[in-house]
């Protein structure tokens, strides 16, 4: 499996595990939405190539932070990464990048 997808899968699993411990239903819904977005991006070329590795890694790091501290601010950090992934995954580029 491409390493970006692997990192993203780890991030998704971590967010799902963390969300089970969340008490605020609004945060649970937001975490579920983030997982849904990551799943939707996972099979794109961006994550099959090496280009997606840095953002997949950031998603994993922020997911780990959410697991360690189930706070709204950590969830916001994850959502920011998800937004960045969405903006970059479909962006046209050269084959070289």
């Amino acid at each position, binding site marked *: 499996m*491409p*390493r970006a997808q692997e990192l993203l899968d780890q991030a998704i699993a971590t967010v799902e595990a963390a969300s089970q411990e969340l008490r605020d239903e609004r945060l649970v819904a937001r975490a579920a939405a983030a997982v849904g977005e990551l799943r939707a991006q996972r*099979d*794109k*070329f*961006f994550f*099959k*190539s*090496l*280009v997606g*590795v*840095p953002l997949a*890694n950031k998603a994993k790091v922020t997911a780990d932070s959410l697991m360690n501290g189930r706070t709204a601010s950590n969830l916001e950090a994850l959502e920011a990464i998800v937004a960045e992934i969405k903006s970059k*995954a*479909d*962006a*046209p*580029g*050269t*084959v*070289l*990048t």
Partner: protein
Amino acid sequence: MKPAVYFMDARSDSPDTSLIAKMLTVFDAARLGEMISPGDVVAIKVHCGEWNSSAYLRPVYARALADHIKELGGRPFVCDTTTLTYSPFSSRATELDLLITAERNGYTSATLGCPFICADGYVGTSDYRVDIPEGFILKEAYIAQAIAAADVLIALTHFKGHGMGVIGGALKNLGIGAQSKRGKFSVHMGGHPKYGVGGGVKFTPEAFKGKANDVNWELLENCCPYGLFKVTADDRIEWDRKRCVTCLGCLGLMNPRGIFEPLQEQFDATDAAIADAALGAVKAVGRNKVGFINMAVDVSPKCDCAGFSDIPIVPHLGVFASKDPVAIDQACVDAAMRSPGTPGSLSEEMGVAGAGQRKFDLAGAAIEGLSEQTTINTAVVNGLGSRDHELVHVAKAGPERFRFPPDPRPTYKRFGKLFEKFQPFPRERFDGQGFDRLPEVDLSAVKHPDGPKVSIHPHAPYHGDGTQHPAPSNGHAAEGHRHGHAAHSHSGDD
């Protein structure tokens, strides 16, 4: 006997250890100048950088080398070649575009002191065909005409990473950079039944979401110079793949959409072909007439052909020169592997920042599975050169050689008479002190890391908190800040 690679590190603390001086020093140590006879036309092959690239070699390196070649009696010119289109918005795919981009990046005849030319003509069809029966995959190469016509070729290479080639070194500077556009089509496997995009890529048209769901759908039709993609009235994408020449204009659009699956074999085959094409360039000019300088500085993860330059993945590695393009590239790859990665760079994000780790397989390549050794190893197989080499550390050449050539005289001889006539220091003012200044201030008050330890001048026009003080109506108020010191200024000095 192992080929020699002459090397100087990137540290600099004197004019003769500047990177420019080191480039000339290793050039001489490798005896590259001995290839040049008086009157020889010498091609200096550089990568002038894509539009908005910023890590390409500063033009001063080519200028200094051209000046040195002129001292040796040669007639230098600096050159680059047209590219494949390789994206919908490339900036060097015709001579016109190349020259415009090169000029913006600082490569002009004026800055270089010799002509800057596009070596393969307006469209990239001006070339010279070379048979390469020794080739691993290619059996012919098409060398840019101006390079093939030169008496001597110096590949002045910015060593860095590359998404497709994995490394961008001396071999790629010739194996891609010295090929005409026609030659580049061959190297990239255009028309190849197995390794070409048209022949090998997995095409999944059902991944196209339709015009309504793809705001850039018109680009899908316009990314191919041959117009091989059509979006039909009933929202299907069609591709005339048999006519595909592997210009790479489409991959950056088709891969993200899932319409194409990346074809790793095309990348691998191209990396091997680069070595064969480089051999073709060497054969076109003559084996003993090609020299190599690798400037391993600003080692960006992607090539200068990308329209951006990321943080270097390793610190400056140094300056290398050799007559063997394989040895010099291997020496640079080895140096990158020995080096720790740059904090915050792609080498760290890819987990290869440790000293001793291969850097480019992950931090350079666009897709996983490529190797920083493919081109180098292929160039061993086709006989172009040797991976094994002797790394020769070169001593600095002394400051005398690198003084300002137009006027190397010391200061008094240069300026004594000049300053008598045009006195830049107003010695007649302020009792010979020349300028209006306070006799003493608390300099320690402005050195503190947390900010100044004296109050803001009461009439400073801009305050650090963003507020703006009304400008004084005349110079008197400012003089009041002198704490009683005599103000010798004339009106308006404050």
